[in-house]
């Protein structure tokens, strides 16, 4: 059973990968519909193309926002759910709901919320008297942060549940001992809780980074890479090259660059994870 599935996987992933390599080394002639071998030209073009190079900091900015938001929010949610209070199990269910909403539906919902003509964010701020006129939230400066917020909304519950599971393994005695020794809540969090869950924090960091670098649906549905190129991250840049400009070679080269970045990140995280483990 395993072999056929593996074979299918290799056929469905491996063959396209090889084809991608072939594409990246050729120039696609749209009119004649044939490939011309150009060697590494596409890669050289890609690293000199301001559109490609410009997409890299946007990708990093987006990912950093997503990671920061989902780790901090996830930690807050996990600490909250670790408290003992009435309605905790109800809240746990509610918190999980955004994770059940697909990345695609998340994008559509947030596009409704952020709309400049009927969005509920504008409606809410207007009702509270905080704004006089409806604002364009998905503007050139702000759009990428709003897309990151939407993505974090969808992703955070997963992080929160990882962190919660880790929090629940902390023995109560340590906290009590620290309390007896006169440590305040913040010191207790910093010196007792955080070291204990740092491994889980790291895993959430890894997951959030990987997911953020792969994100595509949110850009396609919420902004379409715009306004202009304000939210054109690497994944969407590849899409635009392929489907707007038919620059298949360039897209393939950019794909390999993106894959390389992700591999490097994965390696860095892997080293961090194993080192942490050994350090314990």
């Amino acid at each position, binding site marked *: 059973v395993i072999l056929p599935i593996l074979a299918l996987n290799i056929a469905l992933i491996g063959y396209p990968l090889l084809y*991608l390599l072939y594409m990246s080394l050729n120039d696609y002639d749209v009119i004649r519909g044939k490939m011309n071998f150009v060697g590494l030209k596409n890669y050289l073009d890609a690293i000199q193309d301001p559109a490609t190079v410009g997409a890299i900091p946007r990708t990093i900015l987006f990912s950093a926002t997503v990671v920061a938001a989902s780790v901090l929010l996830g930690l807050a949610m996990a600490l909250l759910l670790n408290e003992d209070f009435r*309605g905790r199990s109800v809240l746990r269910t509610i918190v999980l709901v955004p994770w059940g909403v697909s990345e695609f539906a998340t994008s559509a919902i947030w596009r*409704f919320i952020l709309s400049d003509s009927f969005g509920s964010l504008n409606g809410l701020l207007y009702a509270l008297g905080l704004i006089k006129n409806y604002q364009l939230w998905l503007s050139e400066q702000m759009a990428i942060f709003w897309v990151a917020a939407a993505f974090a909304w969808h992703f955070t519950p997963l992080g929160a549940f990882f962190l919660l599971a880790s929090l629940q393994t902390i023995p109560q005695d340590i906290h009590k001992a620290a309390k007896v020794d006169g440590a305040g809540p913040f010191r207790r969090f910093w010196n007792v809780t955080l070291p204990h869950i740092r491994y889980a924090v790291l895993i959430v960091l890894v997951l959030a980074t990987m997911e953020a670098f792969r994100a595509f649906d949110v850009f396609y549905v919420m902004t379409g890479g715009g306004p202009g190129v304000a939210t054109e991250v690497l994944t969407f840049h590849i899409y635009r090259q392929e489907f707007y400009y038919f620059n298949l070679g360039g897209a393939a080269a950019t794909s390999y660059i993106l894959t390389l970045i992700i591999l490097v990140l994965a390696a860095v995280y892997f080293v961090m994870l194993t080192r942490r483990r050994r350090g314990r």
Partner: protein
Amino acid sequence: LKRLSKRKVITYFVALVVAAWSIAPILWTFVMSISYEREIFSVPTHWIPEQPTSYNYARIFGLAYEATTVVSGQAVQIRQGLVNSLLIATPVAVVATLLASLAGYAFGRYTFRFKNATLFAFLSTRMLPPITIIIPYYFVFSQIRLVGTYQSLIITYVAAIVPVLTWILLGFFATLPIEIERAARVDGCSRLRALRTVILPMAAPGIAAVGILAFCLSWNEFLFALILSGGTSVETLPPVISGLFTHAAQYTLMSAAVILSIIPTVVLSLIFQKYITQLRIVDAVSVRAE
């Protein structure tokens, strides 16, 4: 005592904020979906529609009178997308669960050559950003003339989902006590019969859980659905909805479609949460039994 109550107040306040952050966006989308199109544009916003209506849902299910066929087209598209998504996600869930159960069982029970390498190959296929391979992937499917068919998406999803399910199940199978299976084998059961009559009933909760997961993953997928089914008669719900964000967008109709698209996965993921805790219970019991 006073500090304790202060802590409670803060807890409840934060709980309220977190709950609002989590479900307010969905509630707002629901409010939109039960409004008439003109009402959502009112300033100040109507948080509860003056005339709640099921009109948008009725349109999607083909139960409402449509004034013109021009506008009704979008509702028909959404209905077709729902049907297509169901027709694809259901077989994917069944087939992927079946294959992953067998693979997970094999990985969890037997050691064989290149086991770790195979496992790694299984997982590494999930690391790539899908956008990077989408064009060559499309070429492959257009060469074998499967673009715009149910099969194309079913094959794609089964291949992508089975590794994930296998990975979850192998840990689960490893926790099931091997003694019962051995006893069955000693009593003269064949390997397959032992699997069917002894292991499968024990593994039922885990298998149900991954089945649910498979359905959700397939139901939610966007990019491959967009490329392989976009603009064809088998287009699934996500690309249909995203295609409706145009100048002629009917936002209340679209929000009804979004609500319909998230109901199965939200409900199933909540059930999944229950199953996960059940899996833990099974773990605990089996550990005690050993």
